[in-house]
């Protein structure tokens, strides 16, 4: 147990910060995913076949290819993109996107595909009558979307979004390729240094379970809040 002490000889403080990093990356990735959903969900629901195709390709590809591969592709393919951008900006030197952004973006892209599906499903299961009523009352698109559709959609989406959160949280264990120090990577370092993989990987599992447990409690509260008056 004294492997876990905070301070110089124990790994406790490193693992603590790693846990914070995991939480930070997961939240950032989830939000980035939501951003992607904001773009792609309307595309999916639109009548334009071409836009449909783009959105469907996004969700199908990301959900059909292993996360590890998506992360590798994003990380390694990023070099091509960055070199291209750098060459356009000729004098714009040394663009360095730090590991946190890269990692969160990679997971965010994956998370976004799942959130898009969730939001699409949620919007499609809202009674069509709601949309018609808003149109009849002459509300502008943005207004009725924000005030009428969104609250209902969120209530329907929260259970599935908790799944997306779980997936996002667990996927953060795969981004050690970007060098970001989150739970998995820190356990890996500690296990290598102390040559005690069983202890540290088991402890990592415990940390993830704790995060899962806390998340579930928070999400239950959210579900209750959004189900008021139903």
């Amino acid at each position: 147990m004294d492997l876990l002490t905070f301070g110089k000889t124990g790994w406790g403080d490193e693992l603590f910060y790693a846990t914070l990093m995991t939480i930070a990356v997961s939240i950032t990735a989830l939000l980035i995913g939501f951003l992607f959903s904001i773009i792609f969900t309307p595309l999916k629901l639109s009548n334009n076949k071409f836009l449909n195709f783009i959105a469907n390709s996004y969700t199908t590809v990301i959900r059909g290819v292993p996360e590890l591969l998506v992360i590798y592709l994003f990380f390694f393919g990023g070099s091509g993109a960055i070199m291209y951008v750098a060459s356009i900006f000729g004098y714009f030197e040394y663009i360095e996107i730090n590991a946190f952004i890269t990692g969160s973006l990679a997971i965010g892209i994956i998370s976004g595909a799942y959130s898009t599906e969730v939001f699409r499903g949620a919007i499609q299961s809202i009674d069509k009558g709601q949309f018609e009523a808003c149109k009849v009352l002459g509300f502008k698109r943005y207004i009725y979307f924000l005030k009428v559709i969104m609250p209902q959609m969120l209530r329907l989406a929260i259970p599935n979004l908790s799944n997306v959160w779980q997936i996002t949280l667990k996927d953060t264990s795969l981004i050690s390729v970007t060098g970001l120090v989150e739970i998995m990577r820190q356990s890996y370092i500690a296990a290598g240094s102390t040559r005690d993989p069983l202890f540290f990987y088991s402890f990592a599992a415990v940390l993830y379970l704790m995060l899962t447990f806390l998340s579930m409690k928070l999400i239950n509260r959210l579900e209750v809040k959004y189900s008021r008056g139903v």
Partner: protein
Amino acid sequence: MDLELIFTSLPKLLSAAVVTLKLLSSSLFFGIFIGLIFAILRLNKNPFINKFAYGYSYVFRGTPLLVQIFIIYYGLGQIEYFRSTFLWVIFKEPYWCAIIAFALNTGAYTSEILRSAFQTIKPGIIEAGKSLGISNKIIFYKIQIPVAIRQSLPAYGNEIILMMKGTSLASTVTLMDITGVAKHIVSTTYKPLEIFITAGGIYLFMTFIIHNLIKYLEKKYSFQ
């Protein structure tokens, strides 16, 4: 984009696809049994038993697959005592370590799917069986299980695809599945984009086939 490289690596990646499929089918095979057992345990009246089953499913669904594989492969491998038992013959091979990790993982998800399927069987079906004088045991085996399986097809189809993506983690313990071979090729040719896109394409193709297979099975077995 080096198209020639894509052509030359395609055969290697496709033969690796066989490894992926072997991993997938073995994991699913054992996983279904594990899932069925734990689903039944979950429905048991005894609180110790159903809490234990719930604990199992909570642990394996709440931790990343990568952690599970590492604990089984590296963690167990470091225990001197474990290495002296007969179990070591199995755990020595990365192939079996991976399958055990995958099976336990998919078993947890499968148990949840089956459990919810069991709990949502229309009570009328069971009552019909009872009114016909069929014993409880036979009701369970001949009525509940088949109905539960049919009801879980959509969710289980999803689980198959998730498991197939999970097999890519076998590459982290030296197994040469599609991802492992792809990484290997990249490490010698330094052309990550072409290789990973090709590998991704193969996974996508397999997802497509599995997806359509499940849809076909759903249609065939639907009693709606």
